[in-house]
């Protein structure tokens, strides 16, 4: 029997600060053992438990795409005991990881469809994974138009800035970046994500929407999607809940008869509608 | 064998010293080259009234043999009344520990002013003597990997 609670060793290859408030840090990890690397197969939207021995474990969405070979990326917000420890990690340190966990985005459903990605703040991590995956030459032809709306409170709080610039140049991907408050160097859009969505007004025809962000953004964006006639079955989101085991045993991420860790974290609104609002 | 350990055993004592008086007193003892036993580890706190009894208990649980809390003399508190409040906490805690069966003398209190380098050294000497008399602390100490009593025999079986 394989012990699903034992972390496998990885090493921090690169650690970089993402935002000007220094609260977000991206860790690039690579496997210590070849066989672990081979066995690790994931899709965008899945997550891992990162573990710092002596501090504990916490779940993080995988920010890198399966198409980026050899390493895994996680973007971590400094909040509690484990995340603070993760922020203090130096390059070259060994850490533990369990995963991939969860279901991931329904990539198969996306075939031949338009994809609308809406992200807010630091919830953009698994969306990055999705965008990189879908826009990879191998996969780009599988889906039709890709539209990305991404907002942050301030320009300094945008994640993956270099990549955003690159994406902007691409012709096969429409990217709209917005901030709540601009600063003197900011040339882009200023406005809240729900309003920008209304402005961009993507067609809901043959389109799947994937939305990830703070609860307040989701709350106001959702009605706009409804107004654009997106059916519940074609709106997907990724839930966050407190988790421990990550494999549907420990019980705390339970919503209705589902477990966010095992049956999620990605749910369609059609699914969520049937569940108690315990999230 | 037992005696030898007793002879070589030196108690570990944690001292919470108030910033304004006792810490300065300890400093004075140092600069005046007044000797005192090296058994104490000092933590500087703003005021003896700052001491949450939880700190003392945590120290005792972590294997410290004795705790000394030292502050300004009555009337001299930098914050006017901190040491009076501390005094009540100390009195009740000491009695309570004695009642529980953890020797009350494991926790000691003193007033040492910034000018009393000599007194500081004397207090530390007395405390070390008292704790030595009590021997190393066995009750309430958390042993590494001691995860048993609650579920008796758990460690050996579960």
């Amino acid at each position, binding site marked *: 029997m394989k012990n*699903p609670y034992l972390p496998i060793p990885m090493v921090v290859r690169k650690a970089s600060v993402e935002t000007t408030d220094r609260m977000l840090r991206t860790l690039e990890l690579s496997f210590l053992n070849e066989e672990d690397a081979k066995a690790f197969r994931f899709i965008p939207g899945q997550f891992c438990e990162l573990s710092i021995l002596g501090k504990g474990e916490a779940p993080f969405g995988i920010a890198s795409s399966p198409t980026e070979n050899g390493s895994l990326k996680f973007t971590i917000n400094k909040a509690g005991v484990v995340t603070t420890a993760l922020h203090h990690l130096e390059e070259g340190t060994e850490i533990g990881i369990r995963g991939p966990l969860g279901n991931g985005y329904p990539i198969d459903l996306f075939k031949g469809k338009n994809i609308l990605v809406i992200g807010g703040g630091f919830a953009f991590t698994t969306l990055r994974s999705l965008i990189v995956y879908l826009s990879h030459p191998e996969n780009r032809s599988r889906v039709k138009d890709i539209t990305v709306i991404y907002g942050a409170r301030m320009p300094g709080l945008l994640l993956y800035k270099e990549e955003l610039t690159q994406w902007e140049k691409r012709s096969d991907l429409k990217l709209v970046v917005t901030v709540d408050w601009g600063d003197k160097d900011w040339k882009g859009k200023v406005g809240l994500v729900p309003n920008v969505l209304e402005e961009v007004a993507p067609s809901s025809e043959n389109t799947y929407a994937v939305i990830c962000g703070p609860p307040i953004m989701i709350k106001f964006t959702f009605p706009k999607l409804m107004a654009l006639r997106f059916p519940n079955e074609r709106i997907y989101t990724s839930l966050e*809940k407190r988790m421990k085991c990550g494999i549907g045993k420990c019980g705390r991420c339970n919503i209705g008869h589902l477990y966010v860790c095992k049956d999620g974290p990605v749910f369609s609104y059609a699914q969520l509608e049937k569940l108690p609002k315990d999230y | 064998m037992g005696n030898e350990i007793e002879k070589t055993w030196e108690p570990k004592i944690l001292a919470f010293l108030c910033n304004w008086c006792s810490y300065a007193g300890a400093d004075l003892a140092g600069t005046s080259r007044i000797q005192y036993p090296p058994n104490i580890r000092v933590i500087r706190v703003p005021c003896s009234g700052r001491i949450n009894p939880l700190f003392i208990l945590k120290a005792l649980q972590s294997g410290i043999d004795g705790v000394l809390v030292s502050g300004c003399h009555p009337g001299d508190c930098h914050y006017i009344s901190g040491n009076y409040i501390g005094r009540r906490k100390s009195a009740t805690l000491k009695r309570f520990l004695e009642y529980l069966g953890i020797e009350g003398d494991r926790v000691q209190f003193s007033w040492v002013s910034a000018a009393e380098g000599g007194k500081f050294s004397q207090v530390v000497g007395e405390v070390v003597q008292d704790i030595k008399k009590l021997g190393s602390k066995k009750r309430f100490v958390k042993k590494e990997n001691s995860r048993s009593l609650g579920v008796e025999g758990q460690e050996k079986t579960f």
Partner: protein
Amino acid sequence: MKLKLDKKDFKPFLQTLMDEYDLFAPVQLAEGVSVFRKIDHPYEVDLSASNTQKPAKEIFFPQSETMFRYEKVGNENRMTSMEEVKRERILLGARPCDIEAISIVEKVFAGEECTDVYFLEKRKKTTIIGLGCNHPLSTCFCSSAGGDPFLRAGSDLFFIDLGEAYFVELLTEKGMIFHKNKFFKETNPKDLTLVKELEEKTFEKVGFSIPVDGIEKRLNLMAESSFWDRIHEKCIGCRICTYLCPTCHCFDIVDEGEHQRGQRVRNWDSCLSPLYSLETSGHNPRPTNRERTRQRIMHKFNYFPKNFDQVACVGCGRCILYCPVHFDIRQAIIWTSSKRPKRFGGGTI
């Protein structure tokens, strides 16, 4: 196979078990407080309690369990997993409700993709000797919850107390190993009659008074019912009912020790604790007692049956007996079934 064990042979019999196995059985920690423990001497075993305070799940899923130890050597983390059970075990004197509960917990821990090795290893290496319930308490409602005081399912051997002797049934392959035990004797037809009488009498006593049947469907319609606004009021949010519940299986994973050396541990956790669902951001998806109480009841009687076709309650009555504010889960169940629950608005539970 049906056999008999004289009570005078009980302690020597236990000794024969202990020679081969680690024996776990109820012991009294204080007057009237009994739990399952590893037995070092046969005289410790005390089968007098109808229901031990802590259920037998503890043998397979301890309140606190080291998952692995770690040590940092240079830049490398060395981890030693602790799942292995070195010596085969016997669980003696568990009541049918507890044994049924173990199979319920096993459903969760077995899983399809990920198996909980810690639980399953212990389960695999344990032989269960069940003990019939001659004196079910008034709080017992096992029959209503799908069990019965003499349910054999899950036991490898089953004992029934006949006063002077135990009537013994060997039920499984694991149980048949013991058929040559020197203390087991032949039964006679009189014993069989006694057992039958005892069972009938006890069945009658327990009865089927609690409407557990169909509760899943009833609760389907009650997710946002005002029922929850009232039912939680008296609950003070301690964890007694969940810790003492034989089917509750939530746990927390924490690290103990230092950076250099220590252990990853799992401890029982409870959905009634606000910390259970509190996120680091400060957001709590189940912010008040109302949601937490709903989670406890819904999980037992609605969510769990949706996943495993069985309610996660065996009717042992512990949560009723030990609740400090006397929350009676039977009343909650009854209320879900009455059309206009009596005194619903006032919240009596």
